[in-house]
């Protein structure tokens, strides 16, 4: 049992402790802001990691920059603008709404609208088709109706 515990301890992933810097914040609100910002900003070198998660040197630099700016009292918009001015909109995990991102933001709603249109069109067509069948039945004369019922095996009209 003891060996088993020892063995398991060996496999504790040390990497999870990486990318933790020791920053001291002037207050809790600033700390919270730092965490939100580093969570929302993307590391330019990595394909899909935010500044918080990444171990790359550039991410460390940018964390440092964010730290300096939150400590200095810059607001979130200023910090984001600072990053976008240097690294482009790539660094924002939540892209802004503008001409190049309209499709991204509104595309899904467009698809839903198209879906609804198709759905309505199909169900309407089906309804019309059904009512046509009904009409056929009511337009039959007595003999025809009897024959139809014979074929269908229904005996109510007899």
């Amino acid at each position, binding site marked *: 049992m003891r060996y088993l515990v020892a063995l398991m301890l060996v496999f504790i992933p040390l990497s999870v402790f990486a990318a933790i810097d020791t920053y001291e914040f002037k207050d809790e609100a600033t700390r919270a802001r730092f965490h939100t910002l580093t969570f929302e900003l993307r590391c*330019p*070198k990595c*394909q899909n990691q935010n500044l918080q998660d990444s171990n790359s*040197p*550039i991410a460390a*630099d*940018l964390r440092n*920059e964010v730290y300096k700016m939150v400590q200095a009292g810059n607001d979130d918009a200023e910090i984001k603008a600072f990053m*976008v*001015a*240097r*690294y*482009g*909109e*790539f660094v924002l995990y939540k892209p802004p709404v503008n001409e190049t991102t309209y499709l991204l933001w509104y595309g899904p709603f467009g698809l839903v609208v198209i879906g609804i249109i198709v759905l309505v069109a199909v169900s309407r067509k089906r309804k019309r088709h059904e009512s046509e069948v009904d009409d056929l039945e009511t337009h039959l004369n007595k003999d025809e109706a009897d024959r139809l019922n014979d074929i269908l095996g229904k005996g109510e009209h007899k």
Partner: protein
Amino acid sequence: MRRFILFIPLVIFIGMGAFLWKGLALDPTELPSALLDKPLPAFELPSLLDPERQVTEADLKGEVALVNVWATWCPSCKEEHAQLNRIKAEGYKVIGINYKDDREKADIWLKKYLNPYAFNIFDDKGSLGLDLGVYGAPETYVIDAEGIIRYKHVGVVDQRVWETLRTVMDQLKQSGKVSAE
């Protein structure tokens, strides 16, 4: 009409196929530079080989030039160094930004592999690199005579890349002459 509707899925399929096929050829690590067509950021940093001398963005103006961000810790920089020497030999101006590096090592490097740079900016803290949006050395910029960034290449400059850069530089030189006349 009915026939036509049957082809809609095929059309959608072809459309998506073309879109995704194009996506395969894109390099997701390449970011568009946020500083394209913008002037170089203001800075004041020492020269690499002459620590007494301060270099500012004004020193980069006056001539179409390549600005190459490099460091001795960067293996790809070694790979492109010979190409930079050839570029210098062709008569184009190359300015270096020595990014987060060690002065002594950089000095040795330039003696050993020859120095293609007109001068080098010693950016040991990476502050200029940060303002330029550098996210991985080597990076190479083309700036025009007014110090405006016209082109950015991330990664090694080889002969093929250089041909693109040279075209950009030649065009800038040409248009510079025209506007000067």
